[in-house]
């Protein structure tokens, strides 16, 4: 797979991963990031995926993926088992985001988290102007039919990271045109302009 074929947000995550490391991708889908990391960075990758179709597709490609759930299955792994634990666009769909994040940093030296930013100006404007729950390109669900039960803003996430004693090693805000803006919190502009946030956390 050439780098250009990998989904844009996954490519940004891949850039944060050092070669020849151990990676756990939580919510790995069909394993496209794991496959990319294996093929281009010789990463020893594992995945957890909720959907059986996703798991089957990943295993068919020779990837080590199990059917499981971020909320319940991270506790099985021993501390420090991985160099990176990745959670892409999934934290907001977990039942207990704080515990998931704590578990990620227990079993991994680093955690990489990407999330849709509920503080993005479009979201704010949508609620302010229309008085309705926002449905945007990165939050493409109606309120009654959404997996996103714990939405947060970039600033909210930074608060959580600090609350559990995580160190934010890198922060990226990605705006709706795909522009990437590195930032160091606190950064009000990142929280307003970033449609998505991407974080590399350490302990």
């Amino acid at each position, binding site marked *: 797979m050439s780098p250009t074929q990998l989904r844009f947000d996954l490519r940004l995550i891949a850039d944060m991963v050092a070669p020849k490391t151990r990676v756990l991708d939580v919510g790995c889908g069909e394993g496209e990031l794991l496959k990319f990391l294996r093929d281009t960075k010789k990463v020893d990758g594992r995945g957890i995926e909720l959907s059986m179709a996703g*798991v*089957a597709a990943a295993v068919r490609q020779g990837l*080590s993926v199990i059917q499981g759930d971020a909320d319940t299955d991270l506790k099985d792994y021993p501390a420090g088992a991985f160099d990176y634990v990745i959670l892409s666009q999934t934290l907001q769909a977990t039942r207990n985001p704080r515990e998931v994040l704590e578990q990620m940093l227990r079993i991994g030296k680093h955690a990489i988290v990407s999330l849709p930013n509920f503080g993005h100006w479009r979201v704010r404007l949508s609620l302010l102007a229309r008085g309705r729950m926002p449905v945007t390109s990165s939050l493409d669900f109606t309120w009654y039919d959404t997996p996103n039960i714990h939405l947060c803003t970039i600033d909210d996430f930074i608060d959580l990271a600090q609350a559990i004693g995580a160190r934010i090693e890198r922060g990226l805000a990605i705006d709706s045109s795909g522009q990437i803006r590195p930032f160091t919190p606190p950064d009000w502009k990142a929280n307003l302009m970033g449609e998505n946030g991407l974080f590399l956390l350490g302990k």
Partner: protein
Amino acid sequence: MNLPPVLAPGGIDPRTQACSTAELGPLKLDCGVVLERITVAWRTYGTLNADKSNAILVCHALTGDQYLADSHPVTGKPGWWHTLVGPGNLFDTDRYFLICSNVLGGCMGTTGPVEINPQTGKPWGLGFPVITIGDMVNAQALLLDHLGIEQLFCVVGGSMGGMQVLEWAASHPRRVFAALPIATSSRHSAQNIAFGEVGRQAIMADPDWHEGDYHSHGTNPHRGLAVARMAAHITYLSEPALHKKFGRKLQNRQNVTYGFEADFQIESYLRHQGSTFVERFDANSYLYITRAMDYFDLAAEHGGKLANAFKGTPVRFCVISFTSDWLFPTQESRAIVHALNAVAANVSFVEIDSDKGHDAFLLDEPEFHKTLQGFLDGAAEHRGLLPGRSVDS
């Protein structure tokens, strides 16, 4: 079973005519008994490569045997995984060297209760020591020593075969590169032990059993063994599969007969399953092998914690279960996966959507086969086994 040891001295044993046998040993059993010499009967498919790195050990289930891919010498039926084995097939015989041996305690040529006890000159019968899954695996290890194979590329098996796979990975981790336990469990559940006991009691209740000494009495507890098989066979299927296949359909009749003939197709089917089974299987073997399954408890062997069985394991695992399997349900596989995660092992786990019950691992399930293929290909790549003729690699 009207097969050896009824055999005349020097006669040809049809069970092992089309396979290899060797005298191996000694084998120290878990019960403490030492068998100085055992016979192991096995079949191979494909060619062992120069560095002996392409061997796959296929472990058969309770009533399976070494005739994985060719026709059975007693029944003439095709091998139990014959659709998966061959050149260019899932178990590609151009790429891999497959070994399948009859388990210790079995009745297709490997030492078991039907064979002659060298000390008495008579069949072992109930004099045969009680064996375990670990003993079966150690007998297979003797065979690998005999074949000069230090490490298997893969160990694969379903049901009791899966128990052997887990035992292999736990007790000989350096001899296994990849492990594929399918539709199995790290321990026999109370429900499984219960079904095993029903089968054993059916055999023992048959007056022709004679405390296991039926050979000297010239009898065969085939009725008891057939009932055992019928009861067990139900556990291999699922209610939806039974409903789809048979429903309440009647067997060659328009109305029920108000009697106890096989009015229903399902009855007729089960009776057929029972009566064909006794032609190829030994009743005492059935007792011993089901007992070995009952005793299997990998966690208990490792201080009560399943994860301890796999501590530091270098083995790549792929655990597979089937949604409608109620004999070895998915939660049993999940417990294995949790234990493997606890030691950060390399593990894949797929639950295949199927309505065919436990037997799904023997049937045409495309999703299952694609998963097997993907895992094998991935593992082969890591092991440096190239596709194509193994002899060229």
